[in-house]
């Protein structure tokens, strides 16, 4: 009946406004305990000196845009994936390619190295996450042992192994994240709550908990309990898609990079945004962020082909790194913090130190 439709619309509108007012109350509560700004506290901290970081390695071999990369725990190997479906494992110290596999899909937007160093995971427009064991047997074709693990209903945007080779966490354009058992492909837990594509995730380095943070096109960053599937905290201050999230090394905070050209720091105990890293001359979106080992520096790759280095405590930009000839799509600091690697739409990866 026509009146039913009208009634539902009114209910929807009133629900929406009720949600808005609750959100407003939450912001008020959060503001009550905000007694000082980060840059004020950081006034006592010594300013950083001149910063010199250069490209120390350039990895050439992808025939198209590099979309994602991840480090191996051995601190020198990396896996990278690109638009043309190629996934390559490199010893980036020697720049030798050690493995290569071609996925049956284009835009492989996610890849990850297993903690053991014996396998990699990747996926993209095939809506799946597949695991490939790394083999040095010349008679074996890497693609032959491929294991299809995750199945989403839209593109795979990010994936990460948990503390072992046996579980994978994925994020997808279908608006959900999910935890999978690698051996069986069984869905262990799914995470619903984003109102649009989920673009990134990062596992918390927490000593006791099982949490991770995700960021999406709904401009929200959400923290999840892996065990219950519930969202435990959410932050909505970005003005555009969140492309990248990364935990501060202590696990008490995380940084995000967004298409709104800012990076932001969110504290989990204060339950609020505590810093914005932005500059008027930085106009293009930040695609990828990561912290140096001590958490003092935040490296961010942007769609304007540059990498900006931020002083996390003082909020100022320390350095801008040129070199890539197209947008920087992925950036990760190495496991021992000696360098970071950036991947770009210019088909190359660079290791900076």
């Amino acid at each position, binding site marked *: 009946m026509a009146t039913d439709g009208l009634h539902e619309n009114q209910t929807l509108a009133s629900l929406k406004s009720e949600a808005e007012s609750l959100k407003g109350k939450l912001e008020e509560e959060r503001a009550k305990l905000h007694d000082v700004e980060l840059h004020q506290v950081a006034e006592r901290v010594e300013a950083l000196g001149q910063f010199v970081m250069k490209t120390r390695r350039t990895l050439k071999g992808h025939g198209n845009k590099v979309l994602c990369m991840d480090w191996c725990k051995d601190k020198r190997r990396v896996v990278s994936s690109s638009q043309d479906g190629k996934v390559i494992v490199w010893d980036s110290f020697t720049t030798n390619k050690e493995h290569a596999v071609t996925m049956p899909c284009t835009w492989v937007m996610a890849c990850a190295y297993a903690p053991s160093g014996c396998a990699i995971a990747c996926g993209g427009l095939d809506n799946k996450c597949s695991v490939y064991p790394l083999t040095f047997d010349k008679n074996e074709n890497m693609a032959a042992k491929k294991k299809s693990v995750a199945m989403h209903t839209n593109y795979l945007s990010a994936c990460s192994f948990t503390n072992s080779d046996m579980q994978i966490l994925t994020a997808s354009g279908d608006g959900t994240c999910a935890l999978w058992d690698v051996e069986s492909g069984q869905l262990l837990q799914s995470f619903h709550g984003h109102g649009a594509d989920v673009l990134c995730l990062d596992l918390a380095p927490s000593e006791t908990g099982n949490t991770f943070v995700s960021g999406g096109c709904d401009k929200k960053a959400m923290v999840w309990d892996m065990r219950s599937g519930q969202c435990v905290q959410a932050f909505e201050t970005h003005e555009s898609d969140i492309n990248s999230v990364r935990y501060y090394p202590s696990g008490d905070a995380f940084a995000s990079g967004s298409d709104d050209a800012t990076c932001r720091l969110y504290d989990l105990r204060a339950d609020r945004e505590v810093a914005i890293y932005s500059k008027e001359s930085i106009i293009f979106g930040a695609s990828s962020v990561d912290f140096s080992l001590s958490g003092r520096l935040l490296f961010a790759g942007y769609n304007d082909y540059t990498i900006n280095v931020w002083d996390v*405590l003082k909020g100022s930009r320390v350095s801008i790194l040129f070199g890539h000839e197209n947008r920087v799509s992925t950036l990760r600091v190495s496991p021992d913090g000696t360098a970071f690697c950036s991947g770009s739409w210019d088909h190359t990866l660079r290791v900076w130190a």
Partner: protein
Amino acid sequence: MAGGRPGAQMPHLSKMERVVVSMQDPDQGVEMRNQRLRITVIPHTVAGSDVVDWLVQKYCISEEEALHLGTLLVLHGYLYPLRRPRSLVLRPDDTPYRFQTPYFWTSTLWPAAELDYAIYLTKKNIRKQGALVGHEKEHYDQLHRKISHTWDLVVMQAREQLRAAKQRRKGDRLVIACQEQTYWLVNRPPPGVPSVLEQGPERSSCTAGRVQMTKNTEFYKREMERYRKALTRARVKSSVCLEAYLKFSSQHAPHDPIMSGCLPSNPWVTDDDTYWTMNAPSVTVPTKLRVERWGFSFQELLEDPLGRAHFMDFLRTEFSAENLSFWEACEELRHGGQAQVHAMVDAVYQQFLAPGAACWVNIDSRTMERTLEGLQQPHRYVLDDAQLHIYMLMKKDSYSRFLKSAAYKDLLAQAVIPPEAKRRVFPFMRKLPHSSPSPALLPASTSGEPVAAASGPECGDGGT
């Protein structure tokens, strides 16, 4: 003309537009000049170097950064060179540029319409008397085939536009031609030139009506539940949280190779991987910095396999090694394969929790009761409570004793501080980077725990 909402999809476009609008401000903008081009005078032009200087002043950035930003403005078609309109490059000299008319801004006229492109190419074809070349010839032929049924309309429009253009002053004609050419260079770049408008796979925030994420009553109810829970959450004062960052960063700064360097040298800088050899997961003598880190937090100690091994040795002297073993077994369960869950829970129960178990762990009765109950329906998180209890016990008790123990003090005393590598004076003496065995070559650990990969020639290289 189809419209997306490019401003929303590409927020950098609106920002670039604000920049070029400021640049054209009569008082604060870039200096405008009249530029003589052969016999015509073009008004409202700017010199490349003036554009760069303006950006330097306005944003307090270096010339390099200003040139880079200015180049992006040109690449996106917001500025075009008058003299060599085919080359979208910003030259920091007196090369004249003009600001693109808003009519041709990407946010106004996006995505570029095929019909418009057909008309543009047809005009060019007519002007060049059929001598279109390269990708433009290809596109022209393609379009001709594709929309052959309306081709008469295309030719008519093209002829009309050319006729109207002839009636303009030479200067205006030239400017309009440049504007149009720039627009098409941006929207239909020649082969080999990447498109600056490419955004990658479509994201749902831009398209309307994606069924699975319609904001229905379920969505808002969940949101409200989330807000209500969040309102009851305990928060910590900002000052306390922020102080913690200062403490963490200053404590870890000496351990941050990018901040403080690393000894003997950063492998990426000198091509010498001694740093990795000396910090391999299972060296005999760890470095001082490494042993110090074990004192920062219990988590740091456990995360380092060497630290964990020494802690285990210490626990043995206190007859509480079963605590750490229990904790490790619980970790294996939590992160293990789904098919192994039942077997693992059983094994842990037999070894650590059953009455008279070989490595019985001392858990408080409440937790033990809850755990035993949970074991009726085993799942991977069934031992979480017990694991947390034991973890806290170790952290508050054994860990603090470990740090005060003679064992730890000895480790600190015997730890090495690598000497700084001598700077190489002669470039041709540069060491070639050693290759190292891939972790995939090593036998995998049966427990599925991360296999600590030796990253340097530990065996038989003679060391450095």
